């Protein structure tokens, strides 16, 4: 414990000796202040502590959408763009040299000759390095918590769930950074390789999302067109029973024809994509799912009956109407889009914690295992 504390104090001194650490803290504070400057009054939204005023009928003090917008800004922009992007890059830059410095010849001998096992030393060092990222996120979240409480009167402790989520997200990348850092003893190399790894993750995840979207969409298409064939055929039968010469008959026959063509086309496209879908899903299953990890926050924070800024960004304006609308014609492009979006959202939200976190942590554990094994066996 005394040794862990010594490593903790050392990590604090190392980070606080770096200017970048304080720059990050400063920008974090600015972001919180900017967020806090958004307020709601009876006429609408005020920005910059009242410097600008946006008049709005729907979004004003007391409206249920104000809550959705305010929390949505946090879970969609502050978390997804600030915490999971900019702050993560800054944190990686300031922590990438911790392990290379640690194993630098001349300093590692001093540490490793102390009465502490190598594995314990390695893990402790890893944990204390992460703790500082956790600390930064924690302070940030506390600021957000205060803002949300003061502005819309909701003291929502779930905001703090961003701490473990962002820390876990960061740790996937940091594990890789540590492995490369102790192998190459170079912070810059570690940073670069981690960046490449991150891009790789991003492209696999994006491919998965895109493929998943198309596959879902084609499935919806096939279903809806086939339904269309059935309902139109029924309609046709009823009309034919009354009169064989009804003017609607050729029109309906033509429609059935089109449905059939469209359905075949969708089936062909699906057949083309299907062989890719499974392998990409498998590759993703083995890799850390950082986008989905961050997505957990949205899952936990969004109010199912409220205003969902994420859905609006996806072009689903129904969220504004607040309730499900019965589709007039389920085969139109818009209706099919909406159904596909609904299914995709449902799909991602129903992915288990084990899938999102468990497999990601398994990957991280594997990378850390390699790093600690190397560290334990190495002749320094």
């Amino acid at each position, binding site marked *: 414990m005394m040794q862990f504390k010594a490593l903790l104090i050392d990590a604090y001194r190392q980070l606080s000796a770096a200017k970048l650490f304080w720059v990050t803290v400063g920008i974090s504070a600015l972001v919180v202040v900017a967020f806090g400057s958004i307020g709601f009054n009876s006429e609408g939204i005020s920005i910059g502590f009242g410097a600008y005023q946006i008049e709005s009928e729907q979004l004003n003090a007391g409206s249920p959408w104000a809550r959705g917008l305010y929390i949505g800004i946090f879970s969609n922009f502050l978390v997804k763009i600030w915490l999971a992007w900019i702050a993560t890059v800054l944190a990686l830059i300031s922590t990438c040299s911790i392990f290379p410095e640690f194993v630098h*010849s*001349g300093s590692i001998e*001093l540490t*490793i*000759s102390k*009465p502490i096992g190598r594995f314990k030393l390695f893990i402790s060092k890893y944990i204390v390095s992460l703790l500082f990222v956790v600390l930064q996120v924690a302070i940030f979240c506390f600021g957000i918590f205060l803002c949300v409480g003061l502005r819309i009167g909701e003291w929502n402790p779930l905001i703090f769930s961003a701490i473990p989520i962002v820390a876990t997200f960061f740790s996937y990348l940091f594990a890789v950074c540590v492995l490369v850092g102790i192998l190459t003893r170079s912070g810059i190399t570690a940073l670069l390789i981690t960046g490449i790894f991150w891009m790789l993750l991003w492209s696999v995840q994006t491919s998965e999302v895109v493929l998943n979207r198309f596959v879902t969409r084609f499935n919806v298409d096939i279903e809806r067109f086939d339904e269309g064939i059935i309902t139109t055929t029924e309609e046709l039968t009823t009309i034919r029973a009354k009169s064989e010469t009804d003017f609607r008959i050729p029109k309906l026959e033509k429609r059935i024809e089109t449905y059939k063509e469209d359905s075949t086309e969708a089936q062909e496209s699906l057949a083309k994509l299907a062989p890719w879908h499974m392998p990409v899903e498998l590759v993703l299953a083995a890799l850390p799912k950082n986008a989905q990890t961050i997505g957990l926050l949205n899952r936990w924070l969004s109010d199912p009956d409220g205003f969902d800024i994420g859905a609006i960004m996806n072009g689903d304006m129904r969220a504004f109407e607040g309730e499900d609308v019965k589709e007039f014609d389920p085969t139109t492009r818009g209706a099919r889009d909406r159904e596909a979006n609904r299914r995709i959202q449902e799909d991602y939200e129903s992915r288990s914690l084990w899938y999102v976190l468990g497999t990601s942590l398994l990957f991280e554990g594997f990378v850390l295992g390699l790093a600690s094994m190397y560290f334990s066996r190495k*002749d*320094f």
Partner: protein
Amino acid sequence: MAAIQLQGVEKVYRGKVHALRRVSIDVMDGEIFGLLGPNGAGKSTLVKIIMTVIHASNVSGTLLGKPIGDRKTLESIGYLPEHHRFPYYLTGKQVLDHYGALCKVGRKDRITRASSLLSRLGLSGWENKKVGTYSKGMLQRLGIAQALMNDPKLLILDEPTDGVDPVGRREIRDLLAELREEGRAVFLNSHLLSELEMVCDRVAIMVKGKVTMQGTIDSLTVDSRRYEITTLGSIPEWAIELADDVSENSFTLLGDDPSKIQPILDRLRSENIIIVSVQPVRENLEDLFMRAVDNTDAPGAIR
């Protein structure tokens, strides 16, 4: 009890450098033991094996009575690595506190020991300055202070006088003698031979990963003790026959018993030969060292 007792230490680095070959070494309690050898002989390798910094290919023996590699034993050992580097963002005092804590020294002890060690090593006034501003000699002294933070029974110093000026070296030598008085064993590596001679109770000479000689300096140089007699004018025939070595107007007799040379001096005097000087000569550590190195060709490990 022996502070260090090692038998048959072997080390082959990856890349096939055979750095240590069946090295055996004994360091007694309360003595200063010096390990000598040219660069690349394997001195640091041996020390790193003792300190668990590297893994030996083969090792048996004890450290303070415990088997080598026992973590707990490290609590009572102080270690100054070669070319050590302290974190630049720490001050002298923070360095001592940090490494003291890693050695499981309690907080109170750390505070009192840090300030007493800083003044003992002549670093008072620098305790709150960042180590980045220290000179090489000061860093070395801070390194020794760091090695003493856990009040060790055994101190292992790899090139302790590296980069230290002559005054500082003398101070370190005096400090080592004091530490011996306090009952600690000291094991040190150095290439500064004259220093070892002044302070070490026993030495070992290592060349190309092998220990070629080990013992007190006296016992290692006993074979080379001799008397050198210089006369004015030529040396008589009978003396040349007796002598072990002759040069123009001096001759040498091996041995370190002064009574043995008295008859010779008497005879020279009786023959009215003027004796300029009679000098007891003994090989110093440097000669001994050069002899050991010469016997095994150029320095460096056998690859």
